[in-house]
């Protein structure tokens, strides 16, 4: 890997970091180009192998698909995992199992790095407090932006160096592995997405029976080779039928009476759910 390629990957890793504002905040950053799916395409373009990049991106994304970051706390830093794991795997031969094998430990290390930055950045609100006391609104805006100094130093340099120095290491590592370990990583990599989907299901299943919908989607695609887009329309139809049957029609009056009873307005006009 050339130094300019590593630096470009480091730059995109910074732009896709959670707190970075430049791509319309967290939307285009962390939840946009920070997702391993998009990171795979970006690294693939930079390293000249788009197909391998996208395939690595899909494999890493599947493992982290259920991951959200409540309160800024990350269970695993998927940005670091993607922007180090995917380029190193592309350089070392391009298999998506390699990307997964590299991404998981890097993601775990990334949590410590993230915590360090989030703690260190606590110096800026104190600076902003002083500006507020002096009535200096511009100073507060500057203090807010100063947080980016640490974020940039942390993400850009670490990812650039890891990609630049790690590429030789990754190539050597995968060349030296015995066949049985490569088989093990390949099989493990094929099954690991179950982890991402398990966590995602645990998060969005509201009532137990809904797991049947997951099985339905699974069976439809396995048996009829539907595309994802056609599956989306089938799913929309199911959702419409269910929501209309549950909230409209005969049930309306009973349901809305229940809703009305569930909300209670006290003397101050505060609404409370009972």
């Amino acid at each position, binding site marked *: 890997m050339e130094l300019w390629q590593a630096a470009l990957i480091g730059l995109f890793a910074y732009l896709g970091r959670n707190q970075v504002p430049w791509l319309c905040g967290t939307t285009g950053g962390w939840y946009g180009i920070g997702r391993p799916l998009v990171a795979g395409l970006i690294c693939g373009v930079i390293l000249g192998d788009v197909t391998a990049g996208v395939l690595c991106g899909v494999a890493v994304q599947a493992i982290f698909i259920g991951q959200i970051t409540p309160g800024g706390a990350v269970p695993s830093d998927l940005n670091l995992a993607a922007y180090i794991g995917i380029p190193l795997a592309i350089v070392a031969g391009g298999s998506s199992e390699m990307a997964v094998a590299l991404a*998981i430990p890097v993601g775990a290390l990334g949590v410590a790095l993230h915590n360090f930055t989030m703690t260190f950045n606590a110096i800026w609100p104190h600076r902003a407090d002083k500006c507020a006391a002096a009535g200096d*609104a511009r100073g507060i*805006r500057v203090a807010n932006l100063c947080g980016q100094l640490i974020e940039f130093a942390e993400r850009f340099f670490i990812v650039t160096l890891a990609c630049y120095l790690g590429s030789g290491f990754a190539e050597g590592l995968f060349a030296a592995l015995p066949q049985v370990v490569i088989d093990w990583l390949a099989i493990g990599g094929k099954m690991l997405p179950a982890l991402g989907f398990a966590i995602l299901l645990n*998060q969005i299943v509201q009532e137990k029976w809904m797991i049947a919908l997951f099985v339905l*989607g699974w069976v439809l695609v396995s048996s009829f080779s539907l595309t994802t887009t056609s599956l989306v329309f089938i799913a929309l139809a199911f959702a419409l039928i269910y929501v209309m049957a549950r909230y409209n029609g005969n049930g309306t009056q009973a349901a809305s009476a229940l809703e009305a009873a569930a909300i209670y307005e006290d003397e101050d*006009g505060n609404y409370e759910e009972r």
Partner: protein
Amino acid sequence: MTEQTHSGATGAKHEVHLSKRDVSTAAWRWAFFCLASQNYERMMGTPFCHSLSGSLEKLYEGDKEGLSRALQRNMTFFNTEPQLGAIIPGICLALEEEKANDPSFDDEIIQSTKNALMGPFAGIGDSILVGTINPILLSIGIGLSAGGNPLGPIVFLALWCGIVIPLKYFLFVKGYDLGADAVKLLTNVELKDKITTALTIVGLIVIGGVAATTISAPIAFTYTSGDMVINLQEILDKIMPNLVPLVIALVSYLLVSKKGWSANKLIVAILIFAAVMVVTGIM
């Protein structure tokens, strides 16, 4: 929550109102810089003040002390899901405008509105926006990426940004327009339930389909006895295609939901299972 008093300020020295442009600037400042200096002490406290700061400068023009107090009361701890929660700084901006024109307006109301809304919005935002819509769009993207097709990531990015960027701008402006009235609107339980349920159903079916193409567990085991060769994978495929990966996915889900397994524990378990399968030659 509170009855808005539009009467005040009649005897006040100055009556300042924010223009559309001021609100728009504040909305974009929130959209871009909502996390710029996020930290474990104040979380989104400084960004919150950053977003409103331009408007506050206008509201307290020539009143350095008023501006200083306004900035200080917006520097407190704030933490929510910043995309759906964009409505909160919008609401607070409307309240700040009212406060600037009506000195008798209690600033406790601004503080308590902000504090009361950040928790619920963190919950709704995390579950609907980043916990359901983002994975659904990612699933569509993964589905389109078959064979390394770059269309998948591009479609994901376009759909996600196309939906969420206008949404967070709209929510901020809506919050400003409604002011304290927004709080009442937000307690519309039925609408929230409808949206959540519909999204959950779409999400589960689509995610099921994508999981089927992403998780795999090819069985290599064959039993040979004379001329008869039994290929276990072929037999399983006749029962139902993709049966073994489905069982693995459902067992993983049960371990997470019923046994409370953490992600790391499950990674180790899957890797051990894979090692056993490879060593015994089953996979």
